[in-house]
Structure formats: C-alpha cells, structure tokens
C-alpha cells in the first residue's frame, strides 16, 4: 500500500522505470524523489602523498587509485574495508581537509556541481558534515557543549544551547555532561557527543567515519538508528566502518574497499544466504571471518602502499587467481545489480 502511495506522489516516468528492482524494499517518498541523481559522485579519483625519500629527492606514495562511489539522498552507503584501505582518506578528500602534501586527481561532483577546493571549503560543516573517527578530535581544553555548538552569533546562542540540550537528551547525555571536559567522558559518551555534532548541523550529506566502535549493543543500535533517521529525512549518509554487521543493519549499499580502491559495491541482500551472491573473493572472505560465521581468516596482509603491484591488488591472497590476474588491474564491471573488480566474475 505504501508503495502505491509513493508512486502516486511522484508521477514521473523516469522513476517509474526504476520501480521494477525495488519491489521488496520499503522506501519513503523523499527517497524515491531523489533516487535518480546522485548527491555526491566520486569518479576515478587517485590520491598520493609527496614524501621526501632521501635528501631532496621526492617520491609519490599512492594511497587511493581509481576509486569511484556515488551517494544518493535518502540512502546509506556503507564503506567497509580494513584499516589502511583508504576509507578515512576518502572522507577527508571529499571534505578537502587533506594535508598539504596530498595530491588529489579525478572528478568529484556535489549536487551536479564540480566540487572544487573552494566549494569544499564553502560547504563543509554546512552541507557536508563529518562525524570523525578518533575520539581525539575533541578539543581537550573546551567544555563539551561549547564545542558541539561551535561558533554562533551571540543572539543565537540561547537557541543553539536549547537545540544542543535537546539532542543531548535524545542521546541520553545528562545535563552535567554539558560542562564536562572530554577526558571526563567514557568512550561511548564521546561517540554520542561526536554524533550529536552532525545532528546539530543541517547537513545534506553526512560522512560518518567509524562512528560505532566501542559502543555497547544498545548504544550501537541507537546510534545506527539516528543515521537511519537522517537518511529517512532525505540526507545522504556515507557510513565508513569495518563492522559489516552494523553496516548490514541500516545500509542500502555496501562498498568494499581494499588497498585504496573499491573491489565491490554490493546490495545488502547479497549478504543473505551465507553470502552466496557476493561477487568478490575478498568480500566473501570478510563475511566468512565474522565470529558468527566461520571465524576463518585468510592468510596474508593488505599490500603496503609502497609495494608496487602489477596485477589485481588482491592477487596474493586470492583463492581463485589465475594467470590473467597477475597482469593488469581488472576493470570495474557491473554484475547482478552491483559492481565488482574481478576477472573471474561474469
């Protein structure tokens, strides 16, 4: 029934065509309206750091290569992958807060407009908000409520204070937390404070960089539900995490990162039935390594950034590799409603 109502509200032929593959998803009206155009498009970006090797000789350390993702309004895109796979760097690249020795190539579009460094500076904190990864992002010498509110004009201060209090109340942060310093908070409380900074802003794109580690189950589910709320209100959410289970609970799509590139973008349904429909061997290995599944680890490490690899980046650890895989990087291709970078999938 809800499905029919949504269709009535749209009356748009383009969207009608999309309906076929959405049968079993319940989507809100806001979601359907904006479905067609991605709010954020990242196309084939590469990121490298210029480093001094010895003396004045410089080397380029490539940390992200050929990476493309799209974030749609009203949807949650989870970005999963091991540490060092470039997840946080992607977030920092979108916000334009990379260190000065970083070199970024490729195309980024926000709301149909080119995302230039100037544009990034203009909209970050306003239209794009970050929930940072490390709990060290809080200023140790500033009281909690002041840093959540940030800089506001004096006349708005009372109002902002009230908004902040309401949000804290929602997150079960008691009034005495307002005047505390960061070191007085527990890990979970710090997380909730960081999440509330994003809720405070009226951003359209929320990038949450590992917002959940160290949260107990109840707080975890609550935090996740706040991101779901944001998406339902029409925000695009990029949820960077290594907790696949958390990602599966609320996301629409899951992008799997490995050594600075995307190996697969899967739909949440693909993880059902023991991950049978997953496309890339790495995604399947991740799935099998979960404690509730097989708790089985594959051998080896993600390659270091300074290791030069000619073929597929996962070659060393892959169970399905063949000769072709050691020569040239496999192209991203669309398979079964997702994308994958693997030679052995058709």
């Amino acid at each position, binding site marked *: 029934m809800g499905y029919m109502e949504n269709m009535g509200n749209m009356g748009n032929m383009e969207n009608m065509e999309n309906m076929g593959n959405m049968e079993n998803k319940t989507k809100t009206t806001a979601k359907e309206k904006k479905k067609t155009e991605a709010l954020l498009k990242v196309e084939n970006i590469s990121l490298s750091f210029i480093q001094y090797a010895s003396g004045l000789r410089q080397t380029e350390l490539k940390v992200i290569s050929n990476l493309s993702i799209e974030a749609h309004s009203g949807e949650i895109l989870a970005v999963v992958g091991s*540490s060092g796979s470039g997840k946080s760097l992607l977030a920092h690249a979108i916000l334009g807060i990379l260190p000065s020795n970083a070199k970024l190539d490729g195309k980024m579009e926000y709301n149909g407009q080119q995302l230039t460094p100037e544009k990034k500076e203009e909209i970050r904190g306003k239209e794009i908000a970050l929930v940072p990864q490390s709990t060290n992002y809080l200023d140790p010498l500033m009281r909690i409520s002041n840093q959540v509110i940030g800089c506001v004009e004096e006349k708005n201060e009372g109002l902002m204070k009230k908004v902040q209090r309401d949000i804290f109340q929602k997150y079960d942060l008691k009034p005495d937390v307002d005047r505390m310093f960061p070191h007085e908070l527990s890990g979970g409380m710090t997380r909730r404070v960081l999440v509330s900074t994003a809720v405070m802003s009226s951003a359209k794109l929320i990038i949450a960089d590992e917002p959940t*580690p160290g949260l107990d189950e109840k707080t975890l589910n609550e935090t996740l539900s706040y991101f779901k709320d944001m998406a339902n209100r029409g925000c695009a959410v990029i949820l960077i995490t290594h907790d696949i289970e958390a990602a599966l609970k609320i996301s629409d799509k899951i992008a799997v990162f490995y050594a600075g590139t995307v190996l697969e973008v899967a739909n949440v349904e693909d993880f059902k039935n023991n991950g049978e429909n997953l496309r890339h061997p790495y995604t399947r290995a991740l799935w099998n*390594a979960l404690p509730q599944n097989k708790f089985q680890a594959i051998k080896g490490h993600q390659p270091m950034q300074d290791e030069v690899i000619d073929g597929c980046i996962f070659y060393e650890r892959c169970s399905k590799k063949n000769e072709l895989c050691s020569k040239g990087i496999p192209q991203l291709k669309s398979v079964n409603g997702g994308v994958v970078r693997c030679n052995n999938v058709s």
Partner: protein
Amino acid sequence: MCLKCENISFGYKKNNLILNNVNLSLGSGEVLGLIGDSGSGKSTLCKILAGYENNYQGNVSIDGKAIPSKGYNPVQLVFQHPEKAVNPKWKMKDILNEGHIVPQDILDSFGIKKSWFNRWPNELSGGELQRFALARALSPETKFLIADEITTMVDAITQAQIWNIVLDIVKELNIGVLVVSHEKKLISKLCHDVVYLDDINTV
C-alpha cells in the same frame, strides 16, 4: 595460578563510584569474557588488574600474593588503540623488544615481517601495530593477558587472524585471558565463560 580481585571499589570522585565491590577470578589457561555497557567501568577494572591504577580499595592478588610493583608484571594489558600504546619516536624493533626479546616463533605466528622493523609506528596500520603490541606483551613471564577490546578497531579478517594466533599462544604458554568486548558473538566464540560487569558491580 589464579588472578583474583576482591571487593574492588574505585571512583574518580569520592561520592561517585564507578566500581563497587567487584569480585573476579581468572585461572591459568582460562579464557574469560567480560561484557558491560559503555561507561560501566570495564577499562578501569582492566587498569586496576594490570597495576596501572593504584588508588583503589580492595585486593588484587595472584595465588593469594600481592603483585610486586617492581620488575616484570605477570599481568599484561593490551589496549584498544595500539597507536597510543607505542612510543611514536621509537622504531618498531625497539618497541617490540621493550619488555623482552621476542622469540622468532612468536614473530612468525603473528606474521610480523622483518621489513617492518625499521618503520615508525605511524607507517603501520592498526592491525599490524596490534600484532606488535601483543607479541610484546606475551613474554614467557606473562601469566595473564587482559585484552581490552583489542580487535575493536580492525576488520573482520584481521580480527580472526589475531585471535586465532593469540588463542594458540596462550594455550601453549598456559596464560589466562580476560577478553573485554562489546561483541557478544565474538565473546561466545572465544571464551569458556562470560561475566557481565553489571552483575558483579553493585553501583
């Protein structure tokens, strides 16, 4: 051997106790899970057990004897964030051998490569650093390992790798492990028994 804490009470402020009359015991070779809500005092309890916090009431003992405050502490604590537990200005080989010379077979089982030895801590990922932190803590003199969310920050494959190795080593060395985590599924996979901090903490 048995690590015991009896009637532990602790608070940062006098009228605000975080731990109140907590009792816990951990035997050699035992893998015990500890679960509690965020802010319930898990990490504080870990610090007390490993001798990082002195200002508490109650008793921590091994086989009835107090743990000596000098020399190698048989109770070793490994933290959630390895990057905060290493000296950023030391090279990895110095960090690794800080407590004892780590034998080659432990390095092999953790998959620690020789080529990492000359790196600085910020040149390794969290999972790799955590292997160093664990190898450093698992000396022959270590009798108990307190693992405070040691794999919370790593991906599932690395988590499985690390725990499979740690479980093998502690079995061989007959070390007792306290596994602190929020992930019930991980705890039930790893541990013989589980303790809920809310049940033993009367705050």
